[in-house]
């Protein structure tokens, strides 16, 4: 894959941050179509960008032959978004707490913390064949 592919409510991108904006346009467009308010659109867009960055950099390790897939769905007044990579998984319990004093001025390591703060729920399914993170947010 050399460019984003959109199928229905999903977008798949090569593992390159160049395509972050494509995901954002797709996701924000879907959310506005669902009637999600602008503040919540921004919170979800921030969260998705965190997960896609992690999927590209840490999951797929920027291997452009590996794909990151983002799927957007709505049930009643709740949005659910899944971000999947084709990496080798990670241990969610081994993520440093970014608000500990020794981590406060680190330039990285806040992504999942921010997602947990902004979203209603986060579910992490990770194996040695890939990671799927599902977030939900009511609006």
């Amino acid at each position, binding site marked *: 894959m050399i460019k984003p592919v959109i199928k229905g409510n999903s977008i798949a991108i090569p593992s390159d941050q*160049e395509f*972050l904006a494509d995901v954002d346009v797709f996701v924000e467009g879907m959310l506005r179509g669902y009637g999600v308010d602008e503040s919540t659109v921004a919170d979800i*867009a921030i969260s998705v960008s965190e997960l896609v960055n992690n999927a590209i950099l840490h999951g797929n390790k920027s291997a452009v032959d590996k794909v990151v897939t983002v799927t957007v769905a709505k049930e009643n007044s709740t949005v659910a978004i899944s971000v999947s990579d084709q990496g080798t998984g990670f241990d969610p319990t081994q993520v440093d707490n970014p608000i500990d004093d020794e981590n406060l001025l680190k330039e990285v390591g806040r992504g999942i913390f921010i997602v947990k703060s902004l979203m209603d729920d986060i579910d992490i399914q990770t194996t040695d064949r890939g990671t799927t993170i599902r977030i939900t947010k009511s609006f």
Partner: protein
Amino acid sequence: MKLTDREQNGVMILEPRGKIMGGPDATLLHDKLYDCIQKGKTKVVIDLSRIEWMNSTGLGILIQSYSTLRNSDGQLKLARVTEKIQSLLTITKLEPVFDAYDSVEDAIASFE
């Protein structure tokens, strides 16, 4: 993200626009800041009023800017922080790290 800059009273004012989500965004602001320091311009204000939203990459850029300037005997001030960014700074306990002002003029005056 797009970035413009101007100088006023010896203070560099950086004006990023759009969204800061990762990738080339980080390089753009870092390169501009490095350029400022190379030219001896170490009093810097980042006007955040035109940032639609930023993620942890944006926060990382602000921390990197703060640290880089401090290590060069300079200072970073933030101006016109949006509600969305303020919320992120609060969530991540970074609020006390940065000097933030309601206007660019106030931020510039704070260097005097």
